């Protein structure tokens, strides 16, 4: 059992030049099209070479006001509306500005046990599968989980 047996080949990617607003929309499009919640997307350039990853966390870290520790004490303001101004302020920021560039990848022939080991040790939920520099798929922890534990399910 190797990566290419369990990788998803139907995946969406972001471009490094997408704005954060475009990225948020693409998260929604990807979630609807792949019929599951998508927490992280691969970022690939025009030649489909992997250049980074962007997760919901990356966007939340960036969008969240820095001094959030005082928010809990503000009962009289709904901060949700205040995001409008933040969003205006960050419209020049691109996916490449906040994406994670140190990405661990696997090859199509990487063994299932090795994949599980990487996911556990590095606490990663999804691993891009590359052939040379090109992205050919993505392996999700849930697929590894059910693959390894399907004996439990009979």
């Amino acid at each position, binding site marked *: 059992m190797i990566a290419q047996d369990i990788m998803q080949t139907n995946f969406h990617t972001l471009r490094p030049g997408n704005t954060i607003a475009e990225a948020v929309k693409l998260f929604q499009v990807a979630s609807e099209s792949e019929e599951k919640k998508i927490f992280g997307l691969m970022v690939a350039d025009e030649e489909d070479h992997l250049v980074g990853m962007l997760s919901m966390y*990356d966007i939340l*870290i*960036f969008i969240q*006001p*820095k*001094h959030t*520790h*005082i928010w*809990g*004490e*503000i009962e009289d*303001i709904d*901060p949700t509306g*205040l995001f409008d*101004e*933040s969003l205006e*302020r960050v419209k*020049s*920021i*691109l996916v*490449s*500005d*906040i*994406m994670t*560039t140190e990405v661990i990848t696997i090859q199509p022939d990487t063994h299932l046990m090795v994949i599980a080991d990487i996911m556990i040790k590095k606490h990663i939920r999804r691993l891009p599968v590359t052939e040379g520099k090109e992205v050919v798929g993505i392996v999700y922890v849930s697929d590894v989980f059910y693959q390894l534990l399907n004996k439990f399910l009979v």
Partner: protein
Amino acid sequence: MPVVERRSVLSGISVEEAMRKQVVQLPKSASIDNCINRMIKYKVNAVLISDEEQHPVGVVSKTDIMGAFYAGFPTETALENIMVGPPLFCYPDDELETSLDTMRQSGIHRLYVLGAESNAVAGVLAYPDIVGLLYRYCRACDRGLLKTRRKKDEDKFERYKVKDVMTASVSYRRDNENLAQVIEGLSAHHFGAVLIKNSHGDPVGVVSKTDLIVAYKHGVSVDEGVEPVMKAPVQSCEAEAYLATALQQMLLKDVQRLFVHSSEPRQIVGVLSLSDAARFRSGSCRACVSSRLVVGS
């Protein structure tokens, strides 16, 4: 969420209570491009730089990056070429006020906090973070702004206004200048942002160091004009506004500074930064200052 109620002044607070525990670090071999990525994502003004053995050896600030932009360094340049070192440190048990004195005397904007035991970097102390703390103490104070707002008749305490704390000199550049000229202006005045005026002398936007390093990362040249990079409209408040209200505005909108206008909005008379407010070093009303005199003496 617990509201801080034990004290109403900063005296006696340790560095540990005020520091930010998240310290953004990069190896000295990392690129300027990568450093800009971290500054934008984590909204920090400086990144701690470490050597191969994970020892902190320097700091790269937005000012340093802006300098590299001005000097024409490619963004692939390693951070060791532009870092300033060594970093200055304090300890979690240090008195906050003593550390603020050190920062003021050394003319630096942040101190890194070494874990008392392990010698690993445990946090960072910077002015804007202290403002958050001040704001919490203000709110918890019996005689603070929000309480008095509710019970108007008890409002016997004179409160500070923006004009009392702001920096009253404002540097500006013209909207037909290029980025190199804007950088020159920013470098000369040690401000985090510069006002942009049009040919009629009206304020039309602001360029911050953050805007400049983003432009640098996006491949913009310093010979290009300021307009595509500047942010408009100008985030501002009135000189007569209460300091606490302005602080709240900055914290909620997540901006590091507000330009200050007179009763005529187009007339900018000063700038109020989070750092100014923190250097001011106490709560935002006389109640806090007077209680501090009692407790501190």
